[in-house]
């Protein structure tokens, strides 16, 4: 009689630390939020997350006991490559329409969010990793595969972009604040 063989096909990939299904169940919602902050679209975020997880699944047994940083890195790198390849629907707007008086109060939150959306993709990734994921400059650099100094300069430029973004400046002026 042949020896029984343990198969982990389908949904049963395991590594030494955590199995794939449990990881998806426990951590994918958090990763989805990161994907959403990058893509700014719920459907694209889900697609990006599933793509990243399917890539991670193929090498799950080699990832190690803490797969989340690895999966997050796939999300960010896939996001960058997808942007170049097929995400052509989202384009920065150079001249913003003037908001009506009725829109001013409800648009406060949207202004900063829109300004983040106008950042170049790499800057946006740095902003999300630094200020949503709370990664250090060194951790962000490792995740993006760039030098810590580049993360520092990208962060500074991103904040500068946001401070001079017309929507944010307008919002601050309306509230009597200065950036």
């Amino acid at each position, binding site marked *: *009689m*042949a020896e*029984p*063989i*343990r*198969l*982990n*096909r*389908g*949904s*049963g990939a395991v590594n030494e630390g955590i*199995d794939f*299904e*449990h990881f*998806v*169940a426990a951590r*994918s*919602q958090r990763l*989805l*939020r*990161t994907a*959403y*902050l990058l893509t700014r679209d*719920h459907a694209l*975020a*889900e697609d990006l*997350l*599933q*793509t990243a*997880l*399917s890539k991670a*699944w*193929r090498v799950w047994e080699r990832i190690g006991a803490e797969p989340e940083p690895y999966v997050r890195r796939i999300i960010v790198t896939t996001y960058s490559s997808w942007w170049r390849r097929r995400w052509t629907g989202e384009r920065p707007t150079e001249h913003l329409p003037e908001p009506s008086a009725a829109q001013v109060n409800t648009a406060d*939150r949207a202004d*900063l*969010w829109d*300004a*983040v959306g106008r950042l170049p993709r790499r800057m946006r990734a740095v*902003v*999300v990793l630094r*200020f*949503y994921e709370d990664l250090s400059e060194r951790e962000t650099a490792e995740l993006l595969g760039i030098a810590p100094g580049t993360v520092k300069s990208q962060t500074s430029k991103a*904040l500068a972009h*946001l*401070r001079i973004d017309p929507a*944010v400046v307008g919002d*601050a002026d309306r509230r009597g*604040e*200065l*950036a």
Partner: protein
Amino acid sequence: MSTIDDLRNELAKRAEDVPSGHHIQRLSGIRRKRAAHRRRLTGAVAAASALAVAAVVALVPGNAPETDPAPPAAQKPGKAAAELPGAPIPVVEESGVELYETPGLATLNGYAVGEAGQQQVEFSFVAGSSVLSYTSFCTGGPRPNVSLDEALWISITVNGQLLPRGTCSSTAGSPQAPTMSLGRSSYEQQAEAWASVGVRTGERVEAVARLTDADGRASSDPDVAIGAAFWSKSNDQHHVTPSTVVDDLVEFAGVNYNHVTTVSTSVSEGGSLPVWLDQGSETPMLVHWGYVGSGGVFTLQRTGGRATESLQDNTQRGGGASKHLLRSTDSFPLRVIAEHLNSGEVTLWAALYEPVQ
């Protein structure tokens, strides 16, 4: 923007706006992407092989084409795809076996396909709900048309508990769908039955499929590979009689169908249940029909026309059901007729479904 805190708050608030998706659906999407990736790889390998062969043929002296090659024939959609009344259910492929990912209310949870000659396969998965359904199958040429005594069987255990077994039937090229479950028809009853073998939502299930003979003894066949698959099932059902429930989404021949309406009535000998299809279109409809209460002969037929389908039941009390696809529903009446009843009254019921597009 006055501070970096504003930015942090904004990102945190936006992130909270993300609706929570169910991880089972997410896993299903991941499987689809993996299957698509494999198909692309297979296609790329095939294309590369074809190019390599073409290059070799062209380089061999005397094999150079003397005329321009003919353009490739236009590809036609597959016969099955062309005839499907709705959107085909996505499948995953493993070792030549295709499995439906989302047939009806079920979502594929875990599966394994062994190698030829392997007597047993083990696999594990996380139960996506408290009710599972499953199937087992063989590939590689199990002997056809043998008696049940001579047939090979596949016994399945979950968490060490034996489930109702199935014969070692060939996959015959069609995708696998769940064929077996535990408990009676209601979701609660099924959940109780699955709980008795240790299946609970979100918990890992250890499954083992073994090839056996009719008496349950371990068997093997060098040409036969065995496999099994489990699906989790959601609780979207409703009663058509006090003791009968139907699913709101059902699979039939590779397409999912949504429930539209249900009719039922109690009849005695010779009575019938009218089933009016007044959709007024050529949309195919699925009729899920059955009876509860008495054995007899039950027939689905066009009014005034010939029988479409019959069920015979010799038991004193019982129930049965069947599904029948009506290719055209251009406002014609059907009825379910109860005859040769073994006792008293019987409840006839019919549920109509339309294909998911």
